[in-house]
């Protein structure tokens, strides 16, 4: 035993990792091989039988998993952008430029004590964050990220989106009611009133767009907007876009409509009594919502994954099998030569730099170059990569806008909020609908 522990103690950190990883990988590999060997046939059979179900399960899992990094990224963006607009520096201690701070926030929320107030209804109190988060994540299912890259394509996708958005209010109301706190109750009631009011202009604002498009499938809507950017629906439905954007801001409880958690009025609204990961769910749901509404705005009005102009389609597809022995040589030689080539400038010009450092630098540079080349290659060769990039870029422009609004605007009051929805947005949305319908009649599209 002592021999083992002494030997273990002499290992460096990478050594320890490798010595732990190799047996683990071996065990996993053997187990996998056994499973595939024994159960492979039936699994393949099942999968081929229920291909759509399997695809949906995988997609749903991926969506559930990517919400967390998305929320982290948007939280970090919010901290940094608001800081910059305030002439502050913002987070800059954890990780490079503070990028890991939101991860640390997540960890903090995870390890905090999670308690239930004594007067609260424990079951509903626990379920409320799940409902809120669940409704957010379920909305993501209909979002088309790129051509062919979506979880599910409904022919009533837009309707499903509105329905899931409306489900969040149930969670907020549950949280507000079950917390046994008057601030929470007020917050829950505010959120109910707000969401119910803004559902109507929100739905009406896209009605004109639906008349134009003739479909409710989000995929089809995006596909309709291909070609030059003048095909985007924002140019045919500018008023609809404005109404949709305002209403969707209210749906996502973002400033200036963040009355449900107005921190200077009702402390934190429905989330006042929450702590730990249950609060974390609310917190993440808010930022996932920001992503979703930005993405939906892009999909409906800004062409989704379409590039603003028809991109020349270049398909540089290589069949590795045709290269023969050269492939093997390339794999063996190209990294070596590339690394050496890229480290040469440092070796030659920086006399103070040791050779190994130059080579490490060269290796890093080589990786950067290769990844960049691969990215460019993927961008021009696969339209789903290009589509995803376009889609995310446009979406994050809108995320930036939401954060920007939060940095600038004060909050409206509850009666002004309701008055705005019923007195201005609703008539405007109806007007938009009638004008669109009239235009279609006249032009006869």
């Amino acid at each position: 035993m002592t021999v083992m522990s002494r030997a273990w103690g002499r290992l460096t950190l990478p050594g320890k990792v490798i010595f732990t990883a190799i047996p683990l990988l071996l065990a996993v590999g053997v187990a996998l091989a056994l499973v595939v060997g024994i159960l492979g046939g039936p699994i393949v059979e099942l999968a081929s039988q229920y291909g759509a179900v399997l695809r949906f399960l995988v997609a749903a899992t991926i969506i559930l998993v990517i919400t967390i990094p998305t929320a982290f990224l948007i939280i970090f963006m919010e901290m940094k952008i608001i800081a910059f607009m305030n002439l502050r520096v913002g987070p800059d201690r954890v990780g490079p430029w503070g990028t890991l701070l939101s991860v640390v926030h997540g960890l903090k929320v995870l390890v905090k004590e999670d308690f239930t107030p004594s007067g609260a209804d424990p079951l509903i109190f626990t379920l409320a964050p799940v409902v809120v988060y669940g409704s957010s994540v379920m909305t993501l299912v209909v979002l088309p990220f790129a051509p062919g890259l979506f979880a599910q394509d409904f022919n009533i996708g837009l309707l499903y989106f509105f329905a899931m958005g409306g489900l969040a209010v149930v969670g907020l109301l549950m949280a507000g009611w079950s917390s046994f706190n008057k601030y929470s109750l007020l917050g829950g009631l505010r959120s109910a009133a707000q969401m119910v009011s803004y559902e109507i202009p929100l739905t009406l604002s896209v009605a004109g767009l639906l008349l134009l498009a003739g479909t409710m499938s989000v995929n089809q809507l995006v596909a309709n907007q291909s070609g030059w950017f003048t095909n985007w629906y924002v140019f045919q439905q500018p008023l609809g876009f404005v109404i949709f954007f305002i209403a969707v801001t209210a749906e996502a409880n973002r400033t200036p409509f963040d009355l449900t958690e107005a921190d200077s009025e009702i402390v934190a609204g429905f989330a006042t009594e929450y702590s730990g990961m249950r609060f974390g769910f609310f917190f993440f749901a808010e930022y996932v919502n920001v992503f979703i509404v930005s993405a939906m705005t892009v999909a409906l009005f800004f062409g989704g994954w379409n590039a603003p102009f028809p991109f020349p389609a270049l398909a540089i597809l290589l069949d590795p099998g045709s290269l023969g022995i050269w492939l093997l040589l390339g794999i063996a030689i190209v990294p070596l030569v590339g690394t050496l080539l890229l480290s040469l400038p440092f070796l030659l010009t920086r006399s103070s730099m040791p050779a190994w450092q130059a080579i490490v630098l060269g290796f890093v540079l080589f990786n950067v170059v290769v990844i960049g080349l691969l990215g460019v290659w993927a961008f021009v060769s696969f339209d789903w990569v290009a589509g995803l990039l376009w889609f995310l870029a446009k979406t994050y422009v809108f995320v930036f806008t939401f954060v920007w609004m939060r940095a600038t605007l004060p909050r409206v009051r509850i009666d002004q909020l309701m008055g705005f929805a019923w007195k201005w947005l609703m008539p405007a949305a109806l007007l938009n609908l009638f004008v669109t319908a009239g235009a279609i009649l006249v032009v006869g599209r």
Partner: protein
Amino acid sequence: MTTHASMDDPRVTLDEQLGSFEPIPPYPPRTEREQEFYTVADGEMLVNIGPHHPSTHGVLRVVMKLDGERVVDIDPVLGYLHRGVEKLCENADFHHTISYMDPLEYVSSLFCEWPAVMAYEKLLDIKVPRRAEYIRVLTGELNRISSHLLAMGFHALDLGGITPILYSFIERDEMVEMLASITGQRMLFNYFRIGGVNGDLNHEFMSRLGDWMSRATAQVEANQGLLNENEVFVRRNRGVGTIDAQTALKMCWTGPNLRATGVPFDIRRAHPYSVYPELDFDIPTRSEGDSLARYLLRIDEIKQSLRIIDQCLHQMPDGPVMARVPRLMRPRPGRAFATVEAPRGQYSIYAVSDGTDQPFRFRIHDPSFLHLQSFTLLMPGQLLADWMTINASLDPIMGGIDK
């Protein structure tokens, strides 16, 4: 009485009543008003805000009687920051009391020291050198600007705008650094002395001040451009907390809040003290008397203060900054009432001397105290969110109110 097991600790059973907050006091109502307030009609509820709440500007507790979101009645509860400064001052040397004054209105400390030293100078018949008076006016107006900037920033913060407060703090930090270079401290200056000020202006102060004055107007205006025309902000403020001039006088209001109702009462002109008669400035007034008027009036006052600072710098005479005063002060028995126009209104000290070296009675009058009192007048019928607007526009400082 229902009980259930705690989720956190299964050994504990909890009384459901314990979790509830009942702001109704556990004693019979002491006054007519208390009885009226704590009689809750059907459909109304009492909501407790504070003493620790993001927008109470200190440690203030208010109990609100709500009907939905509409406020039926409101009862502010003070005393969470009460330190008995008056009693402390009655047990302290005359010099000593000045240092007790600073933490009262901690964002405009100089205006708390000023009436105290003025009252003592009256009691002792001390003539303050003119240079010292000019320095007092100069530093005081600087402090007024920083206080108003902070008030406007917090006004926006209470309405949910997070950026203006930071812009305000950038300017305020510059001023605070300036004041620190002549007073030695950033916040609780303790600069005025009986018979003058503690130390003359120095190079660091003058260079910082000149630097700041050259860009102050543009900077302040640019920063306020974020709010002044913002529709959301204007609509939240217009017509909220409206009060007319007569009621404001009955409620003993002073300062910007009174001037926003149209009464041009400013102690710098109504009862000139120091060297204000020699300075040329206007007294801005507005007639609306609502939160927006109070907010905009503070901007006008900042411009007037910048004018005063400019004149002070040009007219500053040479000479000593301290009169010759005894170290141990025993004024003759008498009474003195001294008051200054602080950023929030009339800040006054009533000092009674009995011939010893301590004040016999030391009364501190804080304007925010009276503004806060008017909640019972302004709030009924408004919405819960309007409380934050009104509170921010009245700009109370709890340190001064609770003394």
